[in-house]
């Protein structure tokens, strides 16, 4: 997929508690921000891809969004791959521009998970992601599902609670460098260890946030670069991997679809993990990122945790990762959560990441996973 699509505009709204926001207002703010960032006008958008929201009920969200914004695109669709949706949107939009069906595709998501629902409601709605007959009756929650992965992964690979804590601490330090991040106060290894257990072995600070927020990007035909304002970012490779939806049906608790998704994206881009300058990888829990770093091949099994402890995942290390702070500390507002990684990837590759900039970043790996490590989509992005 060499150079068949570029990302021309990105935007994230404020993230955290955003008073006065609705799911749709966050969509609109993110969309207009990304279109302005690209230097385009609303009328240039001829394709729209939306995701899903939990706080309001729109069975045809993408149609509802276009109606809200007052646009009549040539192509309009919803995508739901959970946390993988943000990366899947780029993959889908790239094929729309590659095949000439669209010239500028707007991808947008947002949800008001703090302002639009109580914390108990958010936890309850998310628990419904378990199988209705064979998991939900047993009191599954999303943290509990990931805790099942964590326990087994630690058992097989020797990963430790300290390794998980190092990831949480690194993410918070990164978020402190981003003015829009939800949580900016530094945390220590002791803070993570002292945080209350949610579902053993996972503690509160091993878990992502619940945030209001929105994100959007514009994916354009390569020759559209001349119409737009910013340094283009090329979509060099994309790939998906799917093994299950429910954790009780996962073929393995230590190896997941991220392996195939990443291998497909790397093969299309013609690069390997060692070529990557900066990575933005889904981190719904500390264990999520640990598993993915090893399964994708950035680190050998059992080595990602020690690398995190040694500072290899931050600036100056072997693989600066989640330079915006990730879902753990930048924020998590539904499908937009996985889009924040891609927004940050684009800023890194444009060399617009200010204090967070990885020097001379040319190649970025971005990855999203949805469900319980169920649906995966990987992207290799390059500075144009």
């Amino acid at each position, binding site marked *: 997929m060499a150079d068949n699509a570029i990302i021309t505009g990105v935007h994230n709204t404020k993230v955290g508690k955003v008073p006065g926001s609705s799911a749709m207002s966050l969509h609109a703010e993110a969309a207009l921000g990304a279109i302005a960032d690209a230097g385009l006008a609303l009328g240039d958008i001829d394709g729209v891809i939306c995701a899903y929201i939990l706080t309001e009920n729109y069975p045809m969200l993408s149609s509802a969004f276009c109606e809200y914004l007052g646009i009549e695109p040539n192509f309009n669709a919803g995508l739901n791959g959970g946390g993988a949706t943000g990366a899947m949107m780029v993959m889908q939009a790239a094929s729309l521009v590659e095949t000439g069906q669209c010239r500028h595709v707007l991808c947008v998501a947002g949800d008001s998970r703090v302002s639009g629902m109580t914390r*108990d409601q958010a*936890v*309850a709605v*998310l*628990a419904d992601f378990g*199988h*209705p*007959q*064979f*998991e*939900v*009756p*047993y*009191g*599954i*929650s999303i*943290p*509990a599902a990931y*805790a*099942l*992965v*964590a*326990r*087994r992964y630690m*058992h097989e690979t020797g990963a430790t609670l300290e390794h998980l804590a190092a990831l949480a601490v690194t993410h918070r330090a990164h978020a402190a460098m981003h003015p829009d991040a939800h949580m900016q106060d530094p945390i220590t290894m002791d803070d993570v260890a002292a945080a*209350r*257990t*949610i*579902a*053993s*072995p*996972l503690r509160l600070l091993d878990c992502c946030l619940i945030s209001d927020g929105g994100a959007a990007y514009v994916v354009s035909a390569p020759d559209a670069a001349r119409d737009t304002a910013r340094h283009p970012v090329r979509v060099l490779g994309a790939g998906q991997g799917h093994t299950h939806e429910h*954790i*009780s*049906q996962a073929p393995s*608790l230590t190896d997941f679809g991220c392996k195939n998704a990443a291998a497909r994206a790397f093969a299309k881009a013609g690069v390997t993990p060692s070529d990557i300058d900066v990575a933005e990888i889904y981190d719904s829990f500390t264990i999520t990122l640990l598993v993915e770093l090893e399964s994708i091949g950035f680190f050998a099994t059992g080595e990602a945790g020690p690398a995190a402890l040694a500072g290899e995942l931050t600036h100056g290390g072997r693989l600066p990762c989640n330079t915006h702070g990730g879902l753990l500390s930048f924020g998590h507002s539904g499908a937009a959560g996985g889009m924040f990684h891609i927004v940050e990837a684009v800023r890194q590759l444009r060399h617009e990441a200010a204090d967070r900039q990885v020097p001379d970043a040319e190649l970025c790996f971005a990855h999203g996973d949805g469900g319980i490590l169920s649906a995966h989509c990987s992207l290799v992005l390059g500075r144009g």
Partner: protein
Amino acid sequence: MTAKPVPRPNADTAPYWEACNEERLLYQKCGACGHNQFYPRSICAKCGGGELAWTEAAPTGAVHSFTVVERAPSEAFKPDIPYVLALVDMADGYRMMMNVVDCDPAAVEIGMAVRIVFENRHGQKLPQATPA
């Protein structure tokens, strides 16, 4: 206070849940490829075949992984905290999610042998695991 969720059988799963009410555990065996399947489906997820025979399961297994849940997903589970959520590898070669009940959560470990007991949940019996 809301009640704990009760499984709502559908056409695929009704025989399974009816057998649970008789304290028998069933799985599906594929006549075409021999795959032992759980959860129940209308087709075999290994080969696409449709000759699935309801088969009585050996009611034993081993803990593949587990977590002690300290934050309940809903009001209904709060009185149970801390409770054990586990993935159990059954003797017939498939995996089930269950709670490990009648057991100190601190005593549960990976590999622990368990057997099936049935919990009566508002008229529907539900398989659960307990130390063998």
